[in-house]
């Protein structure tokens, strides 16, 4: 599909829009439907879209494999790390109350960081699974 100029321009616009939408879903999750998981799926979808239009190698150049694999691990690490932060600051595991002087503020902080962790891992895993399935095909048809 590399020949279609209109398609490529529209795709670029769409991808930008999708990423913005993902961020909206992520940070508006406190007030409306949405949250880390949904935002992660949308982020991954944006890059999958990119790969479909511009080809898998192009997508892999933008978001390389090592980065995706690091994302897969980093999100879980961040989430579990927030848990340990509660432990270090004198609370129980995953205790957000102790993350700030004001308990509600602490809850806010905790939720922000763990949702970010969810986003990173989910986006990473979805993208990785897509890469694995797609590249399996390429190698076979070679």
């Amino acid at each position, binding site marked *: 599909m590399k020949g279609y100029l209109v398609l490529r321009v529209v795709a670029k616009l769409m991808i930008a829009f999708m990423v913005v939408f993902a961020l909206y879903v992520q940070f508006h999750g406190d007030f409306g439907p949405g949250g880390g998981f949904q935002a992660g799926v949308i982020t991954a979808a944006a890059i999958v879209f990119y790969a479909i239009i511009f080809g898998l190698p192009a997508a892999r150049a933008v978001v390389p494999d090592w980065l995706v694999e690091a994302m897969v691990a980093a999100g879980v690490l961040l989430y579990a790390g927030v848990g340990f932060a509660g432990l270090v600051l004198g609370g129980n595991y995953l205790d957000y109350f102790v993350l700030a002087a004001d308990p509600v503020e602490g809850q806010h902080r905790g939720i922000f960081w763990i949702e970010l962790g969810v986003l990173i891992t989910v986006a990473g895993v979805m993208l990785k*699974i897509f890469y694995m399935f797609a590249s399996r095909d390429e190698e076979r048809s070679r």
Partner: protein
Amino acid sequence: MTVAGHYSYWITIVIAMAGLYIVIARGNLVKKLVGLAIFQTSVYLLYIAPGKLIGGTAPIVAEGFAVYSNPLPHVLILTAIVVGVATLALGLALVVRIKEAYGSIEEDEILGQDPAPPGRTP
């Protein structure tokens, strides 16, 4: 107990039975996973339908609303959906590998290729 009051349960049961039937009866590895996914979705209805309150709204606190549908089943099913898709991804990855190793995704053809029936000594 009325038929109408339990309609969601009846549909839940139909879906669960259909899903389970596909998983056990069909020999195609992909179709089995479709059945498994359907079987899992029946649980979504089982949990969420009883949480609905007529006249209530989605459980997002806002001015002007007093009755909210039950949020707890939603949380549980969010987790269940994610677990379901994780299982599905693994299952399909296995199917791809099985296809490469055996050249087939039909259960009986695959099992026929490795003649090691249980309970026999050659």
